[in-house]
């Protein structure tokens, strides 16, 4: 299988060997990964809570989402790169780890959910920007997003358990 061959090749690269065998890269990568999750997740969760009308009702939805968009994407880039490097540190291990694949799948679902919001109900945001509570379609999206991110934290932690 092509993917297995890729993992075997990756496993033998100097980068992978270094990440696996030096004492510091792995714990440092884990710390960078979790800090970026907290920053990215924190911003996403506050946006979700605002759309749900549970937090920061005095702030316009577009202000909150727009003002922290750059921080959110920088955190996401760090999250993704550190995550891939963690996977590269021991590709054979993660190839066999069901939780790793589930986390990747749930991340994809989160991406689709975010795109549905961005190119769906968010296009009409001007009409409800200052509303204390967003329309039902937006609230439904925010609730799903919140549940996905909480679930992803549990699944991500479970990777190390399996």
């Amino acid at each position, binding site marked *: 299988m092509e993917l297995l061959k890729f993992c075997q090749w990756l496993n033998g690269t100097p980068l992978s060997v270094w990440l696996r065998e030096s004492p510091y890269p792995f*714990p440092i990568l884990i710390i960078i990964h979790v*800090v970026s999750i*907290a920053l990215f997740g*924190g911003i996403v*969760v506050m946006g979700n809570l605002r759309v749900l009308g549970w*937090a920061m009702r005095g702030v316009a939805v577009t202000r*909150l989402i727009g*003002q*922290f968009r750059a921080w959110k994407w920088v955190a996401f880039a760090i999250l993704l790169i550190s995550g891939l490097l963690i996977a590269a540190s021991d590709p054979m291990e993660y190839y066999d780890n069901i939780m790793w694949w589930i986390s990747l799948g749930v991340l994809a679902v989160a991406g689709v959910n975010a795109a549905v919001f961005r190119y769906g109900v968010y296009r009409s945001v001007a009409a409800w920007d200052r509303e204390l509570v967003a329309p039902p379609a937006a609230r439904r999206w925010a609730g799903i997003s919140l549940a996905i991110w909480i679930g992803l934290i549990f699944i991500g932690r479970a990777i*190390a358990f399996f």
Partner: protein
Amino acid sequence: MTLAILASIFQQAHPEALPVNPIARWEWVFPVIESLHICGFTLLVGTIVILDLRLLGLRLREQPVSQLARALSPWIWAGIIAQLVTGPYLFSGDPFEYVQIPAFRVKMLLFLLALIFHFTVIRAATAPSRDAAPLGWRRPAAAVSLCLWVGVMLAGLWIGNL
């Protein structure tokens, strides 16, 4: 805490018995509680970053500081309470081990300082009477707050590596 001490006394009297405390008894309890702990600090990071970036004058400048602080307050409390419940419970699994880990002691010290700083200096910085005044000293105060919370997170993540 008390429960943990009782558990360890029981453990010493009956070394062959299974631990009474669920976190020491079943290995899946720890990652589940730790996931909740990560959810709690994700919430704390989200709220603190929003508040401190406002105090630094970098984000949401049109929003009065006191109004933003009041809107975030219940969520900051929720985050702190989540940490005060899950943290000591994680600790109860192996209290004598944790107290010997330098990163654990550093984390507790930083957490205490972050809480004191938040409820004294940051509380004063977000008083309604200061809304009209220039940010002045509140900028460095916000920087100190951010450093303290990031420090708590880094020290906490380092515990697992020692």
